């Protein structure tokens, strides 16, 4: 294992990979502090470019570097202008922006950067520590267990990634159905291709991801038309923010653990993690009267958690091939395209690549924090770019990226169709992450189901591990549904007495 760890480190610090990692960190940071452009949208835009790369280490350096730091720079807009740069920094606003209003923007920013750094490194360490435990577990699984796991992954993301569990489950199934489009090599059946040769190769995930995520975000950004508020004072106390992080180390550690756990559970993304951490801080800390009015502990809790989440996110992604969220689903797609095989291989023959991911998570966080600290003042100014300077280049990227999927004009038509679907899904509160995840896992799910059926008939349903996983699946589905129902009943006003 030590050799693999060393090989992973050497792999990511070699000049080319390191350059790609820095590029990923730059893009991730840029995306982080531009409100309205989420990490998944950018990952989707990057996919067509990344898939042409040959070296898996470069792909890891670029994408994991990008993914790891999105939440670090997003604190800029959350603190300065009360607009979350990414979904993981929403809770940062609650105390970060009041701090900026009180003339403590610099303190809030430095506290958030250091908390992000420490949280991110903690996440990478947990990922590292989990390997010896996961290895025997993953290797003992066969196709029936993997089928249930893929089903569990899609169901969990479907239920938890929105507050509309039924819609989420349906979206996941739509994703699985989309993954079946094309010529099925095993049976020779042309599935949902309607005699159109364009569909024979299947629908490219890049098109779906761009349409589902990137365009709806662009529509939102364009619709808001420069509603970004006026800048606050940058203020003083940059060093004080760093000291604050170490002074509240116990809070930072607890919220980082929450982050890792949330990341590990499929479906609970950054947007949930920071709120959990913030709520935990408010519930457990002493002298809580300042929370919401500019308490640095609120910033530390939220920012430490959202970066630690990334490490936790990669545990199921690498070990089981089941991404914990949208970003890791897109990273997983790129991994598969360049020959990285998430699952048992990542813990055996490709262990050095797993370590490359861990090292990238750690190093990218250090680079991003250093960048943010050094360039905090000039970056803060770029935050106030008007929408008309951001929207057209993104749209151009999206259209080029879509065409690059197959170099076919039908790609653009498909992009517009999936953009419409993404727009309506967002408009009517349908979670979009399960659709992408269903599409990513659809092939695997189908293969595992088929293998289970041909190998064991229906007996695979009675295997002890399968039964345990099915029980877990049922509890996972029913628990959020029942608690939501109970909460609704509690919230219902009592009838007035006559």
């Amino acid at each position, binding site marked *: 294992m030590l050799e693999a760890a060393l090989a992973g480190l050497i792999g990511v610090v070699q000049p080319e990979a390191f350059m790609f990692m820095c590029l990923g960190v730059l893009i991730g940071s840029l995306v982080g502090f531009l409100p309205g452009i989420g990490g998944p949208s950018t990952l989707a835009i990057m996919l067509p470019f990344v898939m042409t790369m040959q070296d898996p280490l470069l792909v890891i350096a670029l994408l994991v570097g990008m993914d790891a730091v999105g939440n670090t720079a997003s604190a800029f807009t959350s603190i300065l202008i009360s607009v979350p740069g990414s979904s993981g920094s929403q809770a940062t606003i609650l105390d970060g922006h009041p701090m900026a209003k009180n003339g403590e923007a610099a303190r809030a920013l430095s506290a958030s950067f250091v908390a992000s750094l420490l949280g991110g490194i903690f996440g990478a360490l947990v990922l590292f520590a989990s390997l010896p435990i996961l290895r025997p577990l993953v290797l003992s699984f066969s196709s029936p267990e993997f089928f249930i796991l893929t089903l569990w992954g899609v169901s969990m993301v479907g239920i938890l990634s*929105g507050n509309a569990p039924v819609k989420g489950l349906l979206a996941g199934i739509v994703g699985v159905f989309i993954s079946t489009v094309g010529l099925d090599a095993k049976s020779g059946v042309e599935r949902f291709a309607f005699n159109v040769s364009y569909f024979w190769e299947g629908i490219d995930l890049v098109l779906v991801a761009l349409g589902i995520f990137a365009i709806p975000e662009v*529509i939102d950004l364009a619709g808001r038309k420069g509603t970004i508020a006026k800048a606050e004072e940058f203020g003083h106390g940059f060093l004080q923010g760093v000291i604050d992080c170490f002074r509240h180390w116990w809070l930072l550690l607890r919220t980082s653990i929450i982050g890792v756990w949330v990341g590990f559970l499929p479906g609970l993304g950054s947007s949930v993690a920071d709120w959990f951490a913030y709520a935990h801080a408010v519930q457990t800390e002493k002298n809580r009267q300042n929370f919401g009015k500019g308490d640095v502990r609120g910033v530390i809790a939220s920012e430490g958690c959202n970066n630690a989440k990334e490490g936790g996110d990669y545990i199921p992604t690498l070990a089981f091939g089941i991404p914990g969220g949208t970003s890791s689903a897109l990273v997983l797609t790129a991994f598969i395209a360049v020959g990285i095989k998430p699952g048992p291989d990542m813990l055996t023959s490709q262990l050095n690549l797993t370590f490359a991911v861990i090292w990238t998570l750690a190093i990218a966080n250090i680079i991003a924090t250093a960048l943010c600290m050094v360039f905090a003042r000039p970056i803060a100014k770029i935050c106030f770019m008007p929408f008309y300077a951001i929207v057209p280049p993104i749209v151009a990227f999206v259209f080029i990226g879509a065409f690059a999927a197959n170099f076919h004009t039908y790609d653009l038509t498909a992009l517009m169709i999936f953009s419409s679907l993404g727009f309506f899904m967002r408009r009517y509160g349908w979670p979009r992450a399960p659709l992408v995840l269903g599409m990513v896992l659809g092939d695997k799910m189908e293969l595992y189901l088929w293998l289970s059926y041909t190998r064991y008939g229906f007996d695979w349903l009675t295997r002890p591990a399968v039964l345990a996983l099915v029980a877990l699946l049922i509890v996972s589905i029913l628990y959020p549904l029942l608690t939501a129902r109970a909460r609704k009943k509690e919230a219902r006003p009592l009838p007035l007495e006559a």
Partner: protein
Amino acid sequence: MIRAVEEIFFTAFIGSVMLAALFIAKDWPVRASIIILSLGGIAVILTIVQLTADYKALRHQGAAAVRPAFEVQPLEHTGRWGSLEIWAWLWGLFFAIHLIGFPVALPLFVFLYIKVYGGSWWTAVVLAALTWGFLHGIYDYLLHVPWPKPLISWFQ
């Protein structure tokens, strides 16, 4: 009210797509249809559950129907016109690419969008030039991308 009706239509649309998929897949061999038949039935049941929920929301003035999903950031309400405006731009770009080709349509789109919304000449020209440079530098020069031929041959 209108929003709640729209939601019902959207759910019904998703449900009918699922039903159609099930209907098409029923004649395929097991290898090709196993996943569709396994999940399709569940999807139909879920659609009925969702339609019932949407209908209940409609009867209660759509209060529950407009809840935003957790994954989506709470954004300011922009109204339908705002969305239609950007959709017009997107479809305009889509047709422009077919008519005059990628290398002309994209920089033109960037330039026009910035100018229409009050950007300075400098910003518009620089960003359009950067888009053109990116298109030619990366895609033409490095990747030799075969751009689709535009319908108006003058732009080839």
